């Protein structure tokens, strides 16, 4: 784990340094021109968030049913990253919407979905902080349920929104856009992995410290 930090950090930094260049060189989208370019950070932030939901849900399941503390640490790290990348998505979304649609929020299907999942995982962090004794297992249940509810949120919000016509059309990617898009997606997923390993390492060291304190008191 620790040996991966420096090469991963260097690689991620390099990718993010190059990203603006790649984005600037990408072709303009026909209706939204410059505004559309926020898409290269907005969608990868979402992809990182969904990766986090999958990681958190599975780690929570392993912790709840097998009791491995490492799984609990992974679940916490993933939940914090879900809230972080979700916040990035929820900030870039309205910024884009304000310019493209003229309003900050429009109950668009995907924004609403992101908001709901963000709330579920903020609830996860609140349970861990204020849940009292046994809050790690409570939070693990929230993590599992959060992952289980994602497809239902997707289906219901999608149908809820597409019954009323939207006044934007999801842009179909032009040929030159795939490159920068996947480059940024890779950069975000690497950032996600880097932050995950850092946070897990922190949690492990906290656990070691706790064990040492307890051993010291005996």
């Amino acid at each position, binding site marked *: 784990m620790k040996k991966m930090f420096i090469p991963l950090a260097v690689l991620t930094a390099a990718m993010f340094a190059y990203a603006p260049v790649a984005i600037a060189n990408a072709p303009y989208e026909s209706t939204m021109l410059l505004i559309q370019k926020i898409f290269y950070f907005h969608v990868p932030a979402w992809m990182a968030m969904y990766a986090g939901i999958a990681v958190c849900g599975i780690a929570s399941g392993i912790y*709840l049913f097998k009791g491995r503390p490492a799984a609990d640490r992974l679940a916490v790290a993933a939940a914090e990253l879900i809230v972080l990348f979700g916040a990035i998505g929820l900030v870039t979304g309205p910024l884009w919407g304000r310019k493209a649609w003229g309003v900050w929020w429009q109950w668009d299907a995907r924004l609403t979905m992101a908001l709901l999942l963000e*709330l579920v995982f903020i609830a996860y962090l609140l349970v861990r902080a204020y849940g*009292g004794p046994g809050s790690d*297992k409570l939070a693990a249940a929230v993590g599992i349920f959060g992952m289980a*509810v994602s497809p*239902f949120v997707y289906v219901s919000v999608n149908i809820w929104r597409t019954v009323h016509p939207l006044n934007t059309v999801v842009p179909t990617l032009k040929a030159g856009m795939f490159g920068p898009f996947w480059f940024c997606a890779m950069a975000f997923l690497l950032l996600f992995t880097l932050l995950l390993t850092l946070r897990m390492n922190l949690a492990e060291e906290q656990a070691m410290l706790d064990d040492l304190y307890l051993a010291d008191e005996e």
Partner: protein
Amino acid sequence: MFLRTALLVLRKDFAIEIKSYEIFATTLFFAVGCVLVFAFALVKEGQAPPDSAAAILWIALLFAGTLALGRTFERERYGETIRALLLAPAPRPAIYVGKLLGILCLLGLTEVLLVPLIALLFAAPLLARLTLLLPLLVCGTVGFAAVGTLFAAMLMRARTRDVMLPILLYPMTIPVIIAGVRGTSALLASPPDEPTAIMWLTILLCFDVVFVTLSLWTFEPLMTE
């Protein structure tokens, strides 16, 4: 054994409740109060906005249900009977099912009161559409109660249990709310849009199957603390 245990838990809750009707009466009147608050907030010049009847029905159920959940488990915590329940030589998920059935009965009785009341106050043809409304209400209530019973049981020992239950429950049950409200308002349209209502009913059914299974599965490891 499983069913017997669940029904025993249900009977126990019933027996306690019949003595004073405390949770039942107060939940019912809270739901009515909720409907009135929404009525006064929304009705303008004697007319409520369209589709508000469906929305108010489900919101009142959501709020009343949250309170009822908290208080059912508060009773267990106060009487310290939860340890006795967990020590009983019975499958733990059966205890969950017993509690779930209790909440379903309570919310069912609340719905029996709320549906005619809302139909009356908002001139909504709810009672004419019972063939599809009833399955919608049943499936929606089961979905909400399944998740709610698990979380309420989990949070019993937490200090901040009163506020944590809605914080956890509401985002998780938004699909139930969307499906319930959209399905009910599809039924209230003239003519009633039955295919849409059936579509939302199917989504609710899938939600119920997934979440009751998930709750049964996770109840055991969660309650071992």
